[in-house]
């Protein structure tokens, strides 16, 4: 495709009206509400539905909701999740012995949250995950559960896991 370069008129070739337009926009912003946040002194509050770090949730019985069905592991596009299943005496029988999420790989797409039949994994507000070492970005089960308990983001919406 050939795009023809427009032939400018003489006042357009002066550029001055365009410069004036730009400066006017800048000047107008002086009187608008400021959107810049002075991070880290000032903290940004993410809106509801923000897709932060996926974390593990605890059920009302104090046990992790995850039954280690590995659907999140299957759906995860960058394969950031790794689960090792184990057997317990609990009626649900199966639980995650180990549960790792590699935040270095995670793309925060939210598929894991969408696919989870137990609502055990949830993308919460946490977004400050940067580290100097990649290995530190692999979070284990204990840390993920602790992160899930930190903010009562889901309060009132939680449903107890149905048995059977």
């Amino acid at each position, binding site marked *: 495709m050939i795009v023809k370069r427009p032939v400018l008129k003489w006042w357009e070739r002066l550029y001055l009206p365009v410069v004036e337009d730009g400066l006017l926009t800048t000047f107008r912003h002086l009187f608008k509400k400021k959107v810049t946040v002075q991070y880290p002194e000032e903290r940004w509050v993410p809106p509801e539905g923000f897709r932060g770090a996926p974390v593990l949730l605890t059920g009302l019985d104090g046990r992790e909701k995850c*039954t*280690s*069905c*590995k*659907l999140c592991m*299957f759906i995860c596009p960058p394969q950031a999740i790794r689960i090792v299943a184990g057997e317990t005496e609990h009626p649900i*029988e*199966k639980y995650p012995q180990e549960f790792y999420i590699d935040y270095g790989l995670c793309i925060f797409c939210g598929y894991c949250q969408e696919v989870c039949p*137990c609502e055990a994994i949830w993308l919460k507000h946490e977004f400050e995950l940067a580290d100097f070492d990649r290995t530190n970005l692999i979070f284990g089960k204990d840390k993920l559960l602790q992160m899930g308990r930190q903010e009562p983001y889901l309060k009132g919406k939680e449903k107890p896991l149905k048995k059977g």
Partner: protein
Amino acid sequence: MALVWIDGKEIVVEKNETLLQAALREGIYIPYYCYHPSLSIVGQCRMCLVKIEGMPKLMTACNTYVPELPKEKKIDGKYDMKVYTRTEEVKEARRGILEFLLLNHPLDCPICDQAGECQLQIYSYEYGNARSDFRFEKLHFPKRVELGEHIVYDAERCIKCTRCIRFCNEITKTQELTLIDRGANTYVDTFEGKKLNNPYSVCTVDICPVGALTFKEFRFKERVWFLQGSNSVCPECSRNCAIRVDTYKGEIMRIVPRFNPEVNNYFMCDFGRLLSERIKNKELRNSPAIKENGAFKVKSEKEFYTTLLSKITRKYNSNEVSVILSGRMTNEEIEAYKVFSLIVFGEVVGEFLYVTGDEDKILIKKEKRANYFGAKTLKMKFTKENEDVTHLIKNKKLVVIIRENVFKGKKEEDIKKNAPSLETVVTFDTFFTETAQLSDFYVPLAGWFEMEGTVINFNGQLQKISKCITPPKGRKPFYDVVSTVLTILKDMDTSDFKSEKTKEIESIKKVLEEFKNREVMNKGFYPWFKEVKNAIPEIKNLSLKDLTSFGIFLKESGNG
């Protein structure tokens, strides 16, 4: 013989054949749970309902035989029966049956091991409703019942197809299982005082169409959709049961039987299946090593083989050398060993260990090595039955052991006492066994599931095993080791050999030259398979494409 019309297709049904069998044979799919090709027919699940013209109700296809009608009664002038399998009425009936089966079935697919290969899931997807109309508390049954050593039973998931019961009654004839209670409360249990511990017990898990019976060793280990299956052959006896090895990220998760009508039908023994557990946590080495001052030292490939070859090549007379070979070697490895022996010892020496054990009338055979009959076909020598290793190494100077743990439970002093003249022990094995620890040279080989090859079973069925997992670079099949030896020998300076007989060195060169022309110097399975083809006249023109998953029958091999 009767002519049947099924959904517009004309099918000839034999006298002893049911409608379902004939339909499946012709590729018309009728869903079923309780029918199994090698078990008796009960018509228990009612899933295979079809509409037969002239019948007031729907009929189960699995136990309907087709009678031959007299000429004047034939439908449309030629058919003995007219069957509809896909009408709305039939589909509605199947939907109803599925709903009944799922009434008390727990919705625990996320934690069920069968999920992914569950017939309930498959048919629900095809025929079922998305939701159940059952609004009451589901019936509760015993869960996590250990029926046997390897089997866990969940009665809530059971659909009472009785496949497992029929298996124990008809195939193993041990009769452990039965249905307990009546009506909706029915469930499967063992007879009092009995446990499901027969040598084929885990086959009940395979034939269970739902997740009621689970294999204890595989329970919760991995979801089946992550598994990658590769065809192989069970190495534990000369039956060579066809198996599928399911792996996940280079780890063997389970072994399941694969259908092969010539060998094992649909089943395999527990001993072979538990091989996946036995090979775990065994010590492995990934590079060849030489014992120096009592400790193994890892060497580079070239350095190792140069040292080894200069120490053993043509140094001993053939009566001073004992080579213990194993039926765990594939045909290609045996052919490769012949070349190795020809170069290193000047003639083909070595005896295969003839290890025998219990056998039964179902699958387990007497010879406990997979390729015993392959070695026989390739005209190798054998030791006496279960012969002790001390006879074999008596008055020998060099002992080479391939894929056998012959010094199991023996100490260095015992061996020295039996063979005081012993100078060098060379071991080729997958695992770092006791034999390997007592030897002077250790070469790690690729395991049974880590290499390609062909094997011949007791009946003369030649089957191919495939590479299920990729071994580390240092562990190779024996034929690749021989290829490496050939390449290294070619480059080696003849003065490296301590042998003073120039004639012998000339003969080594001659053999090398010959094998250079026969392409085996290129590493890999295929050139050695060509060597096997040359050695067995019956398969001279066989190509790998013709070798189906069932293998090929050789008349001259085996017992039969």
